[in-house]
């Protein structure tokens, strides 16, 4: 049997969220099995025993997340509530624990999926599987990153005051991220138009893997689809984009089957996009600065302030890229109502959520747009904060 949580520990390290050896997974089945040991192991152990979850993850984050999270935790009273859709939809808020004690951890995890322990890291619960703990951990890192750079923008505008060290943290993080963006040099090799469903599956799998390896997603999530032979081939809900084998649904457009019940929550948006345009592929990721830029708005007196994600009426653009409101999935406030119609050019950013791009016949242009738009957003952000 593999070391508990090994797969997710590796993912945390590979994605730069943790240093090698930092993640500690506890898996409860007929007793607790730990992936490693720490000096005060009895603390997470007591928490896991009391809470009776299937698993728990405790780890210190790597830089720049560590400094970012420490700063936000210092600013927070008892919890952090970033504005991104990930937090709003799934995390709701991120509790901040004052001390590394079983009591505080238990209190926080009774209410929420994960918590920040200043000076120690993040602790996250996986009630059913370790994957849940991993996703929560990763989402907390992403949400805090987004919040920090959103706050930092307002700090440079004199609207918000962050501690002095914020500039140094931002500077290091921006340098590191800029350098990572420059290094992206792998692009899809599968060329369209596709001639078989086998080619479609392979192309989607490759696009998903590249989206992850280039850092264009958080928690490995996003969605990818292609239109082929009157079917939409789309990644399944909750599928990790770097592991798509067996996780792609074929959804006939003639409404003859409901197999797409397990497809991505954005299936409707992809389908609407194909209906409205002549595109053949769609990529959706959560690149950090596309999300951050979508959150920045200087209209502080706007009556929709605080409800921008659904109520923004402005025609917002970052150069040629529109920013639209919309929540995850369907419904009157869902991004299905806004994103597809806005897809006139390279891509569309959904407020606080992520970036959609579309390709003419394969993933080359869709993926290139994903990376290019993120690079552009990063550059625009750097200009705004004079970095």
């Amino acid at each position, binding site marked *: 049997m593999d070391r508990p949580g090994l797969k997710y520990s590796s993912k945390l390290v590979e994605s730069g969220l943790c240093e090698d050896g930092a993640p500690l997974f506890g898996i409860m089945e007929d007793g607790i099995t730990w992936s490693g040991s720490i000096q005060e192991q009895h603390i997470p152990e007591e928490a896991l025993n009391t809470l009776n979850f299937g698993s728990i993850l405790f780890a210190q984050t790597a830089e720049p997340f560590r400094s970012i999270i420490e700063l936000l935790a210092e600013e927070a009273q008892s919890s952090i509530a970033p504005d991104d859709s990930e937090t709003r*939809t799934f995390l709701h808020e991120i509790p901040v624990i004052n001390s590394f004690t079983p009591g505080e951890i238990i209190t926080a995890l009774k209410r929420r999926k994960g918590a920040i322990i200043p000076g120690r890291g993040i602790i996250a619960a996986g009630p059913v599987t370790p994957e849940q703990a991993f996703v929560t951990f990763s989402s907390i890192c992403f949400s805090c990153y987004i919040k920090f750079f959103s706050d930092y923008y307002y700090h440079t505008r004199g609207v918000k005051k962050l501690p002095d060290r914020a500039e140094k943290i931002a500077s290091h993080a921006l340098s590191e991220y800029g350098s990572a963006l420059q290094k992206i040099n792998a692009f899809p090799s599968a060329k369209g138009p596709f001639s078989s469903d086998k080619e479609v599956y392979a192309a989607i799998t490759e696009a998903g893997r590249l989206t992850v390896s280039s850092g264009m997603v958080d928690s490995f999530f996003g969605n990818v689809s292609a239109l082929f032979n009157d079917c939409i081939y789309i990644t399944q809900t909750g599928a990790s984009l770097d592991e798509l084998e067996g996780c792609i649904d074929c959804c006939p457009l003639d409404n003859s089957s409901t*197999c797409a019940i397990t497809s991505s929550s954005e299936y409707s948006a992809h389908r609407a996009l194909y209906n409205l345009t002549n595109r053949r592929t769609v990529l959706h990721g959560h690149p950090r600065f596309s999300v951050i830029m979508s959150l920045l708005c200087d209209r502080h007196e706007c009556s929709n302030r605080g409800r921008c994600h659904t109520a923004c009426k402005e025609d917002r653009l970052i150069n040629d890229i529109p920013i639209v409101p919309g929540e995850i999935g369907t*419904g009157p406030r869902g991004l299905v109502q806004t994103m597809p119609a806005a897809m006139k050019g390279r891509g569309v950013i959904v407020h606080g959520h992520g970036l959609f791009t579309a390709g003419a016949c394969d993933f080359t242009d869709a993926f290139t747009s994903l990376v290019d738009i993120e690079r552009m957003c990063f550059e625009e952000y750097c200009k705004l904060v004079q970095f």
Partner: protein
Amino acid sequence: MPINFGRTGRVLLIDATERSVSAIETGSNAAAFFIGGRGMAGNFLRPFAHLPFDSPQMPLIFMTGPLTGTGTPCSEILSVMSKSPLTRTVFPFSAGGTFGSELKKAGWDGIILTGKSLTPCGIIIEDRAINFGQNHFTPEMNVSQRLACFSTGAAAVTGPAAEHGVLFSSISFSGDTQQGRGGLGLVMETKNIRYIHVRGSGTVSVYDREKLAAAGEDILRLVSASPVLAGERGFSRYGTGALFDLVNSRRMLPCLNFRKTCYDGTDPLNACAYDRSYGTVSHGCAGCDIHCGRKLADGRPVPEYNAMAHLSALTGNSSIERTLLTSAMCAEKGMDPVSAASTIACYMEISGKSPDECDIVGLIEDIALSRNEGALLKSGSLRYAAAASKPGLSMSVKGLELPAFDPRGAYGTALSYAVSTRGGCYSDACAISHEILRKPVATDRFTFSRKPRMIRLTEDARSAVDSLSVCGNIFFAASLEEYARALCAVTGTETTGHDLMLAGERINYNERIMNYLCGFTSADDDLPARFFTDPGTPGAGISIPPIDRNRFLEARSIYYRIRGLSPEGLPLEKKSLELGLSWTDPD
């Protein structure tokens, strides 16, 4: 504890023998311990659990939850509980419709019905005024005609099947198109109570409406993000029948009494076929934000998934018109279509009759009216198969016929069927959620590894959900984390998701104690032998081998340990006391 928020603090006790009524004041401790709904019903049922289902002292309990009538999303569910004539276990089931909110508005958290009226009659509840009413139903009246007798408020009625002693007859409710399982309609019939009509003019107090609205918004945001519920191919668009294609593609759709696990006929039987052939529109319970039901353009209800699959694939019926007809007949006669179809499938296998040789429509009617072969089949597949000396051909656990997910295709589901307190039921642990629908995360459906803990945790969560009076389907999207916030807003009492899980554990354990008092042991926590010996239908790169019995037994042993049961699957005094439950040794 502000008992007046979310709860009335009063339960109506009706003695049908004496034709007397009284009120039981429920304290805040009981509310905190058992939440409401299923939990509170189990609390009231416990002292009587050892009695036969038809004992006049056996209570039939209707219980709302703290969220009933508050406007919390999907929270209009009513828990009904008694001892099942079919399984002889304690049996809770959830009913939709408006009965629960009317009852709460009338000033009652629930009804405990005991005794036996000398003659058939009804009960009329109008706020605090309780009266016994005349039975104005004729034996020929179907359920819809009976419900139509009540133009105001809400009603619970039994149908002709209960009057003919069908062990899986149901209680039907205003505004609910589904028939409950377990045969509680027969319990109501043994009390000679044909209907309960309730009208309430009050309101349900909520501690903080603003916080409740915020909690509701969080829940509905998750619904919108759920492909299962709100997706283009999900329940809101196609009803729960949307599961048909997925389950069939996973090669775990039970066909011909579970002899095959894939429907490969040329006539489409899926939800899309109903849509294309007839045109369907959305339909849902009162207060529902999912609308998992469908109706045809002509008003007939489309069967929910388990009825849709069992009344077609399981019985070898390849006509959706015939499926509609049989489903409607079950509804009109007031009986569970899942048990009815499974019993017919068992009959077909034992008698050696092919689907073409069986008039399934006639058989359903015969069962409801207890005539011809129906007189044998009305007692369910286990009793029928046992009488034919072939008990192994009843595809049931503890006598409850299995739903439309073949256990060979999902091992967590297999384990959950075996250990459910009410018999072969998937909804207690809803392992299909992670094994098939990828929520909250996808798990490997062909392994028992880590499933015992998953089953135990989801059973606890579901017990809490049923006790809050929330629809189980919402948990394909939201969790107790979100509903704990809603509960706080309603009652004004700080509650966490973990608190609800603890209460759920207590509620589930209490039911196990009751089953123990009725004589159930690990021998009853088992699957039909077919699933350990025969493979399912392979294809599309998927093989469905028989379940490895040793691994199943090992997983069951782990489950027992994790649940705090003895190696024989029996509840323990120490654990019972730890959970704050009283302990009773069986006689």
